[in-house]
């Protein structure tokens, strides 16, 4: 019988303590933000899709020498790199560099294997689209647009 009343006491007390916890949370400030209107600063290290690094401030120039290591190392086969010989230029010149972002799993192996450090992760995370083709990024074009 004493167990009966002590259970009521301890149980009721635990319930009141629980109410106290939620009440304290109720009067504390809100921790979320209204996303599209306010934004939290994202870390500069986040991994978006890859992009070519601009090595020259004036024109859209990159350091890629079309060795193809990124495409070869990509576990998802989502990178296509093509180059051609041009007169007066040593080595190959990049003509096509596309990423199929729908397949990319953001492992970072392409960035790590790039011997000339011509690749990096972009910081773009607000990516949405209606078709798959919108995620087939042409990195040369993106570099020129910047």
């Amino acid at each position, binding site marked *: 019988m004493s167990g009966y009343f002590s259970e009521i006491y301890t149980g009721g007390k635990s*319930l009141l303590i629980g109410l106290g916890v*939620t009440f304290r*949370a*109720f009067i504390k400030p*809100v921790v*979320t933000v209204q996303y599209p209107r306010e934004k939290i600063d994202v870390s500069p290290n986040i991994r978006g899709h890859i992009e070519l690094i601009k090595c020259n401030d004036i024109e859209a120039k990159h350091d890629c020498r079309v060795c193809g290591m990124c495409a070869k190392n990509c576990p998802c086969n989502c990178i296509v790199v093509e180059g051609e010989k041009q007169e007066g230029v040593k080595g190959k010149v990049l003509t096509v560099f596309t990423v199929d972002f729908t397949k990319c799993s953001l492992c970072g192996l392409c960035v790590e294997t790039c011997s000339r450090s011509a690749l990096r992760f972009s910081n773009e995370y607000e990516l949405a689209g209606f078709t798959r083709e919108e995620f087939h990024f042409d990195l040369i074009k993106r570099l020129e647009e910047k």
Partner: protein
Amino acid sequence: MEQIIKFIQTYSLLRMLLAFCCLIGIIFANAIVMGYLERKIAARIQRRWGPMEVGLQGWLQMILDGVKILSKQLIVPKDANRFLFRLAPLLCFTPVAMVFVALPISRSLYGINLNIGLIYIIAMGSINVFSILIAGWSSNNKYSLFGAMRSVAQNIAYEVPILLSLLAVVLTTSTFDLQEIVKAQSGPIWFVLYPNLFVAFVIYLIAGCAETNRAPFDLPEAESELTAGYHTEYSGFAFGLFAIAEYGNLFIMASIATIMFLGGWNGPFGFLSGPVMGAIWFLSKVFILMLTMMWVRWTYPRVRFDQLMNLAWKYLIPFSLVNLLITALVVKII
């Protein structure tokens, strides 16, 4: 203006129609306000913003949701009992409207004053069980049926402590007339301040939570076990009626607590108890009670079914019986 009032007074049918429209309006407005408050309070307890986009602080959100619900189709499952399936939401909503008629919101603001008002309200309140049972059974869904079965057992078990705790007040005032009960509390002391009636008040609040299927007793719609319980198959406005009736029931439960224990439309110490101020006092007490129930809902886990029954039969009913006995002795001696 006078002519209009006279016209309304002469034609009682018109008066009833007008009162009925007001009533439905109140129930809908109550659901909108409560739905909004529920979402806001839940959000603040969880340290979120809640609805913010539509209108200032998102106050139009519930109206928008109402419109969305209205625009949706009521899909009747293939093997459902079509008649009962459509009947259940109406059966859920009608008793709520009927109870609202008898609530004395203020000294002179009420639909009808019955000398057995309390019995009438409790009788109407129990019809709710039928609607849940019919909704669960006619959906032809096993989860819905579980919800319905749980609800019936729960409501029957919890009517007993509700009645017993309210009977303590009836013994004290020796009337079932709600207006009389409120008038008996017009002095400085409301019934909740009597020790024995305070116990009755606590028992009533717990049992009322269970009767209105609110968390932590929301077993009929336990979403982690039964997906959505008895209204799993409902969509569109039928679902909306269930939600409106739920908030209506909550309002009724809180207003009975206010009338029976918290002095109804009386201000504290009989302060400012005019007809208009009375309504404000009444509504503010009701809303404080309902906000408390929301606070409880967003704090606790859900109890299990046998624990729910244990709580009723092992704790609430013995306590309310003993309490009733003590009240009877007190009334006899004094």
